[in-house]
């Protein structure tokens, strides 16, 4: 006798933005599955038209309050690419430094506030703090250290004001940056302790054969620059994106999904970066990864929490290195004139590659803008994970299965506020009938 059952989560908690999940099962067979996004669209690509190229960093930052630096960096990269300008030396180092701050802040938020409660059976980190006060305090302080970098270098932690096309408005003195050192040294130890703590969580046995896509750079663990590569042979410059990626509509969801042409779903974010670039990690981060038993690649998405902890350690260590090597540049920015040109830019947002493309007219106004955030790219992979996970776990109660599927979505730290300005949606809050 076959039994049909439905599991619907109308409003996913502990993700950034408004999303839902719907699953219909017959025995252990998935009949219907949707990872839905009902966040209202805000039309960034539309209203960017007619704005000055120089406004793109400040305007696109407002796509996401959790990863504004990623938007600022990808848009700056695109404008500089259009103008044929390379921002290098200490200005590039400062970009990397503020990005480290964003990685620390965003990853600490996800590890401690959004994801750890799943593994330990709590509704929130605030509930978790009753039984794990030291850990939650540590998570809060780690997050604060990330924010301190953003505040010093960017002026504030959400929507920093100091980033501009070509560099910064004002560059800090070495002495100012050195005030961050004691906290960063503490944070490096705390991140290593975090990686040990989360590595002991109970992980479901679940592996998938992903196509991982991330930036790669010959000299460093790629954040703000590099080529786009994958574990299946992709190796392209950022301006080759349109030849290799496409956005398609899925008939049942009305949502545009990014996919690799001919190949389909792929995976971006910490697990992809780690699996493609782990040999470029800094020494303490490399050791932390070894001590947790991660291995050179990671294909269990539930273990992404361990990878995030390792990346926090990396970001702290890298920030310390950048501060140590810092010499204040003579000029805070280089001139950039992208008039009448097309530019492409990408960088590694905490959740994965963030791609921007702009056409600039002769007046310096944006004629066309195209932005592909990481969560749009991971949507297909999220759904594939859920479809693959259900058959082996259909014996679980609805409540347990729902909990684990929500957890599987949160493996990606999905940022729905980011994804939605571009996703094609219908508002459908209730699970549809069979």
């Amino acid at each position, binding site marked *: 006798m076959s039994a049909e059952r439905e599991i619907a989560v109308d409003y*996913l*908690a*502990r*993700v*950034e*933005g*408004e999303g839902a999940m719907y699953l219909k099962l017959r025995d252990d067979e998935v009949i219907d599955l949707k990872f839905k996004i009902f*966040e*209202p*669209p*805000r*039309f960034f*690509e*539309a*209203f960017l038209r007619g*704005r000055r190229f120089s*406004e793109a960093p*400040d*305007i696109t930052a*407002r796509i*996401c*309050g*959790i990863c*504004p630096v990623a938007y600022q960096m990808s848009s700056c990269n695109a404008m500089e690419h259009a103008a044929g300008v390379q921002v290098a030396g200490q200005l590039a180092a400062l970009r990397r430094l503020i990005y480290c701050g964003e990685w620390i802040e965003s990853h600490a*938020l996800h590890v401690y*506030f959004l994801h750890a*409660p799943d593994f330990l059976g709590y*509704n*929130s*980190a*605030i*509930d978790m*703090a009753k039984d794990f006060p030291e850990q939650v305090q540590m998570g*809060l*302080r780690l*997050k*604060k250290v990330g*924010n301190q970098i953003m505040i010093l270098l960017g*002026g*504030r*932690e*959400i*929507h920093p*004001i*100091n980033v501009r096309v070509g560099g910064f*408005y*004002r560059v800090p003195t070495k002495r100012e940056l050195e005030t961050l050192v004691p906290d960063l040294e503490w944070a490096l130890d705390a991140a290593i302790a975090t990686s040990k703590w989360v590595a002991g969580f109970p992980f479901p046995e679940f592996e998938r054969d992903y196509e991982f896509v991330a930036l790669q750079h010959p000299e460093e663990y790629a954040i703000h620059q590099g080529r786009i590569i994958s574990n299946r042979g992709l190796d392209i410059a950022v301006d080759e994106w349109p030849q290799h990626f496409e*956005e398609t*509509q899925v008939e049942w969801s*009305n949502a*545009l999904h990014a996919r690799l042409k001919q190949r389909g779903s792929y995976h971006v974010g910490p697990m992809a970066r780690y699996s493609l670039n782990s040999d470029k990690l800094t020494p303490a981060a490399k050791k932390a990864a070894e001590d947790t038993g991660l291995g050179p690649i990671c294909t269990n998405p539930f273990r992404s929490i361990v990878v995030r902890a390792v990346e926090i350690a990396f970001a702290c260590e890298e920030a310390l290195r950048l501060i140590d090597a810092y010499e204040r540049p003579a000029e*805070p920015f280089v001139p950039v004139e992208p008039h009448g040109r097309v530019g492409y830019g990408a960088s590694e947002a905490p959740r994965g590659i963030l791609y921007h493309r702009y056409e600039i007219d002769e007046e310096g106004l944006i004629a066309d803008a195209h932005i592909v955030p990481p969560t749009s790219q991971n949507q297909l992979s999220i759904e594939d994970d859920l479809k693959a996970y259900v058959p082996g776990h259909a014996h679980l109660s609805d409540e347990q299965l729902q909990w684990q599927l*929500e957890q599987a979505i949160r493996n990606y730290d999905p940022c729905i*506020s980011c994804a939605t300005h*571009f996703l*094609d*949606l*219908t*508002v459908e*809050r209730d699970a549809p009938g069979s």
Partner: protein
Amino acid sequence: MTTETRLRPRLAVWKFASCDGCQLTLLDCEDQLLEIAGVIDIAYFMEATKGEIEGPYDLSLVEGSITTPDDAERIQEVRRLSDKVVTIGACATAGGIQALRNWSNVDDFISIVYAQPDYIATLETSTAISDHIHVDFELRGCPISKHQLLETIDAFVHKRQPNIPGHSVCVECKMRGTPCVMVVQGTPCLGPITQAGCGAICPAYDRGCYGCFGPAESPNIDSLGRWWKGLGETDTDLVLALRTFNAGAPEFKEASDFYER
């Protein structure tokens, strides 16, 4: 529900069209968050917790603007469930950057972004929460200030008015000791017409204020416009500067429409 537990005020945090940054500001209160959770019940806050305590709520913080027919209904429900409603951030208080659609044909916007425009359920405009319901207090900023948020929560818990100054960013520059970027560097700045609250960050980083906190009390935009033109800025520059995150704030809207004519 016992009387004793009900003495703890209940806080709800709601999201409409936004970037999540203003509700993140609450989680960015790293030194105060657990203390806050110790004295008030965080009863509904989807970004932070799966746990949900049913309304009514003593204080609702509302982030985001109204851009869809569903959200126009949902905000009415928020009002019914809440004793006090405080809107947080430029989206909720002025419609946000997404209010730029208010100067365009929204159908054009949809077709620029979406392959299948028919599926998009959206309103012609992005509007402030106060255009739809009575709002007890508006907290400005893109994003809001952490200190102003803590002050506002504390004020409502203790049933007093929040102490949030309405003066301009210029006052904060003077308090910070920052030389005027317009006078000294000739950099166009919105500080004289923008409400304080950020701490006058931009001039301290050698750039002009770009208006994150919206219009200050009685802003003299006409005078600022003359100053800007004296620095070589055009009507178009003024229109673009006034039409960002607080484009829908009445004083900024009126002025940007004036400079566009």
